């Protein structure tokens, strides 16, 4: 009997210890990692938005924090300026690996605002895996969500897409019910609970996101979350014609929805070579993408030359952090700064 009691006491102690340790671990992890819940949606520009009003903390790759605005994207809570530069892009543009004010969109905003920090001149509408094919599908909805757009910048880290990635052209519809704070309110209870648990216990979302990292060098849980997009797709020549057709359709649909200033921001990944030089890889589809951009009056801003020049002059690498490896993963502060400088030059220089 005495032994039984002791065993029971021991078991209860272990359970209590587990609960206490779990709570403590969740508190301790917050300065390193905190991810607000995602609100998935069938309408709107992007397939998902963050839970509005929350904060993102990321020490997994680089170290950054950002605020989720009332629309569910990472921006400061400020009213929009009369004319806004809308930036659509993936996790590089979202930029949670650097502090919010060091992202290229924030730096560009500072430059364009002319000292007026009461309004937002550049609006960052980026989520993980929001690549060109998805952007094309949600392009019209994005313009409906941010009506006062002067210029649209589309970030494309690669020009290589499988024709099957283009699931639609401007088919996503804007719906006020699934935008910003209302989107979370309209979620079913089970999804609200799921989001709530992830937010109260950030450790769970960290564990879950770690499962998606198969390539350690990328060192980010987000990089793999590509909403079904095939990141490593290299198309065989047989589908090149098809590729040209779908990208042409994509540009056509963009231009049907928008005839204003359009910039394609292309920032290729780089590689550090054993001989100490760097190289960036322009894919075989790159010339076509450039050509089609010109045809549809879009400015193609390629960062490859800037990457090269900056490395040769200052040995600076635009990707990678002190907790990952140079040239791996997302844009770092140098990368963001260089992009902001180039974009500012383009926007202020009148496309020269």
């Amino acid at each position, binding site marked *: 009997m005495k032994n039984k009691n002791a065993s029971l006491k021991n078991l209860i102690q272990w359970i209590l210890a587990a609960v206490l340790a779990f709570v403590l671990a969740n508190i301790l992890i917050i300065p390193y990692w905190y991810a607000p819940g995602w609100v998935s949606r069938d309408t709107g520009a992007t397939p998902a938005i963050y839970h509005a009003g929350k904060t993102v903390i990321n020490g997994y790759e680089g170290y950054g924090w950002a605020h989720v605005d009332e629309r569910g994207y990472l921006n400061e809570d400020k009213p929009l300026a009369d004319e806004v530069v809308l930036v659509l892009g993936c996790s590089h543009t979202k930029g949670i690996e650097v502090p919010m004010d060091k992202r290229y969109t924030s730096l560009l905003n500072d430059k364009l605002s002319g000292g007026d920090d009461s309004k937002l001149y550049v609006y960052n509408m980026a989520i993980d895996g929001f690549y060109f094919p998805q952007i094309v599908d949600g392009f019209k909805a994005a313009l409906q969500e941010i009506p006062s757009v002067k210029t649209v910048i589309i970030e494309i880290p690669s020009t290589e897409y499988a024709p099957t990635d283009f699931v639609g052209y401007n088919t996503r519809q804007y719906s006020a019910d699934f935008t910003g704070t209302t989107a979370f309110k309209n979620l079913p209870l089970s999804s609200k609970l799921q989001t709530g648990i992830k937010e109260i216990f950030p450790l769970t979302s960290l564990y879950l996101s770690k499962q998606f990292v*198969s390539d*350690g060098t990328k060192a980010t849980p987000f990089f793999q979350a590509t909403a079904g997009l095939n990141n490593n797709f290299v198309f065989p020549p047989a589908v090149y014609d098809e590729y040209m057709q779908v990208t042409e359709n994509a540009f056509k649909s963009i231009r049907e929805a928008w005839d204003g200033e359009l910039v394609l921001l292309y920032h290729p990944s780089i590689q550090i070579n054993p001989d100490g030089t760097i190289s960036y890889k322009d894919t075989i589809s790159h010339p076509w993408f450039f050509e089609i951009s010109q045809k549809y009056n879009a400015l193609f801003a390629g960062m490859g030359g800037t990457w090269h020049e900056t490395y040769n002059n200052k040995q600076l690498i635009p990707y990678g952090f002190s907790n990952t*490896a140079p040239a791996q993963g997302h844009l770092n502060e140098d990368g963001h700064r260089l992009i902001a400088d180039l974009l500012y030059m383009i926007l202020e220089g009148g496309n020269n």
Partner: protein
Amino acid sequence: MTFLTLPFLIFFIITMALLVLIRGKQQRQIILLLASYVFYAYWDVRFLLLLIFQCLVAYVSAKMICRTRLTKGSSGKPWVLLGVGLCLCVLGFFKYFHFFTGGHFDTLTIILPVGISFYTFQSISYIVDVYRGKIAEPENFLKVSLYISFFPQLMAGPIVKARDFLPQLDRNPAITWDNIQKGAQIFLMGAIKKAVIADRLAVCVDAVFAAPKAYSSLSIWCAVLAYSIQLYCDFSGYSDMAIGVAKAMGYDLTRNFNLPYLSANVTEFWKRWHISLSSWLQEYLYISLGGNRKGPIRTYINLLLTMVLGGLWHGASMNFIIWGALHGLALVVHKLFMKWREGRKSNTGLASKDAVTSKRACFIHVLSILCTYLFVCVCWVFFRATDLSSALTILKRMLIFTDGIQYVFIFFVIYGLALLLIHLYLYIKENAQGRYLFLDFNKFWPKVIFILVILLAMAFYYPGDGSFIYFQF
């Protein structure tokens, strides 16, 4: 199947359950042997035959040595030579085929069976120990085979000596809660070293060693020091996990590392680093070569030769030979220095304690530790670099200030400082003996700490490439 995988967890739980349910000595040995075979076959079933073959060679050789002694009264030397020779031939074929054929058979792919070096060494030690009369005649194949194939240490050591392990088999250790608790703690420590520290540091080390010409001197220094930590945590982490798994089943394996980077000289380093290999090399190679019995010159040659062969064991490349030779030379220099110092002491008639103040002695000791660590790190450059030219580039950049990418890996700083503090604590508190410290699970807070550490380790483990460095050897 490696330790930090779900299949291993399932495998281990089943094995433990069987060991709890079945208490007979021989039945348990059969369970452990079958479990070891399953563990090995899970990696590549074809090489299970090789493992069994090695066990058979060891068993038959040992049996024949004893029989020859009894029937003919001779020492059984031919059987030692045959047994050891066969083991070495198998090892040599898999490990050095391409090296010695000069790349003439490059199209022939020869996979190195994982753990072959380790079970070959155990087979050799068994044969030689029987020959030297250190252990008795083998009773049956089961025990010999289990000694060589025991799954916790099969893949990467520690290299266990038969005289340490076989008596444990005879004792038929019971599965106790105390052993499970201790084993779990040792295992957790090893898992953290491997998955949290070593794998994370590999990110920095791999990047810099892949393109050393791109990085600044500071970055290169950081990567070299990071590699020293990575290698230590990777290998000692595996050893700890192996020791922990064995401990949970009631078996004690040899400690493989003992605060190696706090060694004050290279001789001490080799008594603290990969202890089971260095003692194996000393016992079965250095002593077999003549040890220090044939005069000082032969002693130095034997030392050098042992270390060069030790280097060659790690891999058939010039880098490993240089690495071994550097350590061999350092051991010789240290021996000469000790001899010179002894001579000086006896000439002046001063004891070392009288000759120097304690403060000065302390300063010299710390300086010696630093110098030894730096020397070891420089040698690791040859160990890690992909080729000789790359190693020389790294050394050149370490010595001559060069511009390049500035890359100080933050985890190197954090883990480096944490490990330094832990090492210093253990060094001072445990009198330079890095013994395992255990939490007392009879109290509440140690339970919380244990679970908290597991949760945080799961948060900070590195999800990239988790292969063990020493599996390739």
